[in-house]
């Protein structure tokens, strides 16, 4: 009996050990489901609705990748990760792609062995305070108690900012955005700091968003983007070019509405290549010809996704700002499909 249990354990352990293969694309295709690491809940970026259906800006990236690789945007398993668990989840193979407001930094790219495939939101760290606190600038926060998500790059920025400006603060470490919201609402901290987009999203979920302001100071650069494991370049290419396909689609005016029509009639060679009308670019990625069409059809192009999830018409109300197309004075710039 004991031997059986023992051998069983060995077999199970061997199975787990053997799973660390490096061909993520083949794994995802074989599994039929994309494991996507997302936020535990940040309205507008990644949050489940009352029926448990996830939606949001980061979710759209997962859907586009699933549509491109598996042909079905719904074949995604969303795995909520906290600021602390996200990179471990990616490194251990628990998720195939991490689309969770993660900042592209030198150290994460090199030492943590992640590969950021691109940037889907150019952000910066800000502070949110109650209006009746009478604070109008982050420089007035000397001595304040500040809620901060532990294990994030914002934690380091905060320490640097206060040190640089010769101010003191009392950090309150929190584990998730929901906990931060609760602590901030209860007044356990004077200010809540995270990426400005996250602050806007959090504020939008408040009962009284008009009583809170986001201070004008942006204390850091936070380029947020999807990340994959280092070393699997093929899979990295798939996610990277899916993202670029969404961005390029907006640039060339390809939307989910005119997609089919343009695939047939467009005379723009770039659009033809993107939609697989002329060359078969999908093959070079290990996908089929219509991969980009499906990715764009999943939730629309980059501009459509932005407008539907976090844009000015939504409760979150973020302006395009830096995230406008490069032709509109923004930083969104898809590499050429050629």
């Amino acid at each position, binding site marked *: 009996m004991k031997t059986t249990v*023992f051998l069983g354990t*060995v077999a199970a*352990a061997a199975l787990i*050990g053997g799973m*660390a293969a*490096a061909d993520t694309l083949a794994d995802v295709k074989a599994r039929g489901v994309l494991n996507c690491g997302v936020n535990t809940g940040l309205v507008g970026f990644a949050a489940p609705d009352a029926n448990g259906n996830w939606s949001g800006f980061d979710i759209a990236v997962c859907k586009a990748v699933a549509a491109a690789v598996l042909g079905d945007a719904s074949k995604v398993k969303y795995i909520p990760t906290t*600021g*602390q668990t996200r*990179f*471990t989840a990616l*490194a251990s193979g628990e998720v195939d792609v991490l689309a969770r407001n993660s900042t592209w930094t030198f*150290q*994460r790219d090199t*030492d*943590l*062995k992640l590969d950021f495939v691109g940037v889907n939101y150019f952000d910066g760290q800000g502070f949110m305070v109650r209006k009746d*606190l009478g604070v109008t600038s982050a420089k007035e*926060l*000397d*001595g*304040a*108690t500040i809620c901060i998500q*532990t*294990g*994030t790059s914002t*934690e*380091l920025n*905060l*320490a*640097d900012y*206060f*040190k640089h400006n010769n101010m003191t*603060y*009392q*950090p*309150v*470490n*929190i*584990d998730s955005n929901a906990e931060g919201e*609760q*602590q901030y609402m*209860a*007044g*356990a*901290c*004077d200010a809540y700091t995270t990426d400005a987009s996250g602050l806007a999203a959090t504020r939008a979920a408040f009962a009284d968003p008009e009583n809170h302001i986001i201070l004008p100071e942006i204390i850091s650069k936070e380029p947020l983007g999807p990340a994959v*494991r*280092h*070393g699997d370049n093929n899979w990295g290419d798939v996610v990277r070019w899916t993202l670029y396909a969404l961005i390029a689609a907006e640039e060339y005016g390809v939307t989910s509405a005119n997609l089919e029509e343009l695939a047939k009639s467009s005379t723009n060679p770039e659009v033809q290549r993107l939609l697989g009308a002329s060359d078969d670019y999908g093959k070079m990625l290990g996908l089929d010809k219509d991969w980009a069409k499906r990715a764009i059809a999943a939730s629309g192009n980059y501009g459509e996704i932005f407008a539907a999830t976090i844009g000015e018409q939504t409760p979150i109300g973020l302006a395009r700002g830096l995230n406008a197309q490069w032709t509109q004075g923004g930083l969104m710039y898809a590499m050429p499909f050629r």
Partner: protein
Amino acid sequence: MTDLPAGQDPPFRLSMLVRDRRYRSLTIQAGVFILVMLFAAWLVSNTVENLARMGKTFDFGFLGNRSGYDIPFSLIPYSSDSTHLRAAGVGLLNTLLVSALGCLFATIIGVLVGVLRLSSNWLVSRLMTVYVEVFRNVPLLLWILVIMAVFTEAMPAPRDYRPAADGTASASMILFDSVAPTNRYTSVPALRVDHDPGPVVLGPLSLSAPLLAFLVALAAAWLIHRWVRARAQARQDATGIRPVTWWITLALYLVPLIALSRLFGLHLVTPELRGFNFAGGMNLDNGFVVLLLALSLYTGAFIAEIVRAGIMAVSRGQSEAAAALGLRARPIMALVVLPQALRVIIPPLISQFLNLTKNSSLAIAVGYPDLRATLGGTTLNQTGREMESMLLMMAIYLALSLVISGVMNVYNASVRLKER
């Protein structure tokens, strides 16, 4: 088996390793041992290989790098410029602080409740039963979260103490305007010195000079006190009359303390609201208070049961005999029952202390920066050294537990029934 002449073993053959009862158990043990070792070796090599495949090396060098993050509660000087090693040290000290205080309070609560549960007063004993059952049967994490929620939601924010335009504040300080409970921390008066001659540096340690002076004075007073008591005892043994020494003892402790206080200008500073927060006093972080409270109450419930079991293990005849000698209830408990009960109580108490120490890693739920939150939290995350951080943390907790159980075993040996 053929008959052999008595006192003569058959010559050893290899098949006897399996067939002969005397060797079979050894064979099995050796076999299992080899298998376990092979399994362990396989696990290690698998881990190393997989880490190497991910391009990760096994290296503790990150401990010497700048940490870059701030820790809200620290017993030793620490800033974001300190190393990860120091951050881990801060975390370890915080773990030790909450564990040591937790063990102390849990023991006090446990002994009190355990004794009271056996009280003949119906109301008292039932109340204690309710306490024990409620705390013992709900997971500790829930208690921590519930108590934290009460502290966060029910306590006033610091700015509620500021008078509004009409001159009244919505919250006021308690205990003669000296303590301010808030939803972030409880601000209590702090001792401050006016003339601080600076820290005394002893190698890597640096101690505050006034603190050191007070400690030395207290230790000296205690030593002299012992000597005075021994002399009084000797006098009593010789003459039968015990000399009056209480005023000597009082003077021994009070005179140096008062003198040192005057010398350093020691005084109490009450907290006052300055800017966003209270300043001047000492701010006891809610995470710390909540964790300490939850750990003490939770473990206290277990210790209460251990104490009750220990007391009930002492035969009734003991307390009846003591009562027959004319002792009252309290001396019976303190002088007769508890000393005997201790022998039953100590061994399971060790486990409770170990549990409490390990449970303190739930601090992450309330943002108290213990070892798990610094080394196993932010450091692990910012450096991405999961394996190293986890192994180091496991080694530290293991060492901590071994030290605690070692010390408690020594204590256990001292109260054990002495057999002569």
